[in-house]
């Protein structure tokens, strides 16, 4: 069935700035289909981002949109959500934005379990500045600041989120559009801090440096490398080496931050 994206895209704001073959547009469409299932009032949705290619996404979308500073989307989102519980707050970040300069904000948003959804468009590279290695760049991969191969170990976004206390954590890839759509729907619906890690292709910078000849090759790599968590559970560690584990890693119910605050206020009033 055809999906009417125009409902969520701002009039006259396309074409976007992303390079031909970039995966961010695919992810954006998946996000919109996921959100659409929730029948939200657009006036009550805030889309917040930091800096980078992914962070340009809110500008195209017909919600309350806030394009902030590098790495710090979650700080603005936290203030907004705390003061305005009635808003559904969704943040989008690239991997450098969310996990390097924004790493501290990322772990503390997870810890607080505030009802915000963070979608990490994870393409292993700083695209907007021209292909420098990021905290998720696999060891051995190349970037403009890793001309001899990246010697840094990489972050696993989902394990960091889980360790820091996020109550919904999932991974998919830009190739898996139906799964992205489903996970976004679940993540936004989830009461608490949700993280969806979407492995995405940056053909112009990551692809070119790492011998992916075309954007299609990157998508096919995602298709072939993805391994559903459930299947992985039955496999030996050496069989899952180098795979992208996909699916829901964490889904649990714990008190949400703004609700805890409201409960505290109730207690104070009762005592007074």
């Amino acid at each position, binding site marked *: 069935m055809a999906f009417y994206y125009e409902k969520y895209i*701002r009039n006259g*704001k396309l074409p976007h700035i992303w390079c031909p073959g970039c995966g961010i547009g695919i992810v954006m469409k998946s996000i919109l289909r996921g959100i659409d299932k929730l029948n939200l009032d*657009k*006036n*009550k949705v*805030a889309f*917040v981002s930091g800096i980078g290619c992914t962070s340009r996404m*809110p*500008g195209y979308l*017909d*919600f*309350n*949109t*806030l*394009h*902030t*500073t590098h790495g*710090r989307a979650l*700080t*603005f*989102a*936290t*203030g*907004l*959500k*705390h*003061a*305005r519980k*009635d*808003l559904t707050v969704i943040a989008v970040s690239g991997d450098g934005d969310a996990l390097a300069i924004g790493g*501290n*904000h990322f*772990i*503390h948003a997870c810890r607080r379990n505030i009802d915000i959804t963070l979608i990490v468009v994870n393409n292993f590279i700083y695209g907007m500045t021209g292909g420098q290695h990021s905290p998720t760049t696999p060891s051995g991969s190349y970037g403009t600041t890793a001309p001899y191969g990246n010697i840094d170990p990489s972050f696993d976004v989902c394990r960091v989120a889980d360790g820091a206390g996020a109550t919904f954590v999932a991974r998919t890839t830009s190739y898996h559009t139906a799964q992205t759509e489903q996970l976004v729907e679940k993540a936004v619906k989830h009461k608490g801090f949700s993280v969806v890690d979407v492995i995405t292709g940056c053909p112009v910078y990551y692809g070119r440096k790492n011998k992916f000849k075309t954007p299609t090759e990157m998508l096919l790599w995602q298709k072939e490398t993805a391994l559903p968590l459930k299947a992985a559970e039955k496999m030996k560690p050496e069989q899952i080496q180098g795979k992208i584990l996909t699916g829901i890693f964490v889904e649990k119910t714990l008190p949400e931050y703004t609700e805890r*605050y409201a409960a*505290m*206020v109730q207690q*104070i009033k009762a005592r*007074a």
Partner: protein
Amino acid sequence: MSKKKRLMQGNEACSHGAIYAGCRFFAGYPITPSTEIAENMANLLPKYGGYFIEMEDEIAAMGAVIGASLGGGKTLTATSGPGFSLKQEHIGFACIAEIPCVIINVMRGGPSTGFPTGPSQSDIMQARWGTHGDHPTICLTPSTVSECFTETVRAFNLSEKYRTPVIVTYDEIVGHMREQFIVPEPGELEIINREKPSCGPEEYRPFGTWSNVPDVPVLAPFGEGYRFHVTGLNHRDDGFPTNDGKLIDREERRMMRKVNSQIDDIIKIESINIEDADIGVFAYGSTARSAKRAVKMARENGIRAGLLKPLTIWPFPEKEVFELAKRVKAIIVPEMSLGQIIFEVERTSKGKCDISGINSVDAEPISPSMIFDAIKKFK
């Protein structure tokens, strides 16, 4: 708060001033010597139906304050020294996105960790130019506990009226000293609330729908049907980014003009005995207290001294300093730094009189006798 005399610390008075002004959101991070403000807000806000949050760092606290302000409320953060340095990134964001919010900076010795418990006035240029790029600055400088209350209220008023971040800064002495003062009754001080757009969402332009104040656009809250875009990039009047140099130039100039064309409304300065003064003193914060005393000592000794005590330091009270410079032999500028605001006094006095600094960075207050001695030299 009934009308009564209260004994309060400067930091405490700031917190009560914020509540009085209608502030219902505070985000902060612990740092000496401003922490009491966060502690007070943590205590007060839940009782007033407001929101307190301790963030993971100073930058995050400033981000949260801007995010919450976009939700429509009045918001506050407080910091000191290194924390003020960290906040600069988001103060710039609040400037360009024109988001009202108030930042209290209680000055301690620096640079870096410096002297956390010692007073200082060495952030005064950072308050003006701390964040990168051209931007307007409104910065207020109370010197008494009572002024900590009233100037915080005024900071919120100016922030909402001019849609810009406002900084209130004072040294550790003002922050930590206790004084008795009469707490203003509700309704006694003017409270300015944010103007909402009178047009519908179709016509609304976040940087082009004008308020009653020249060059100040109306800010619609998020979540109430306007669905606009906010960015730290240079933008058009509809909020979307632009690379058009002419538009960037137009918006940058408007942003500066909205503050700099309204200095008569923004600048507040106290003049003490300047009418017939031969020697002037220009001092703010705790230094102004010593200066006031020094001027009295001079008068008692037959020396006609006068004091200019700015409660608005940015925009700088150029006109008042120039008028004083034309009439006196010298202006003495005591400050707890190795010389910062003296350069503004020199610039704006345009060579009309001698300018002499008293500088101290030994974490001790500048005493009245130090200022009196300087006055005597110009007798």
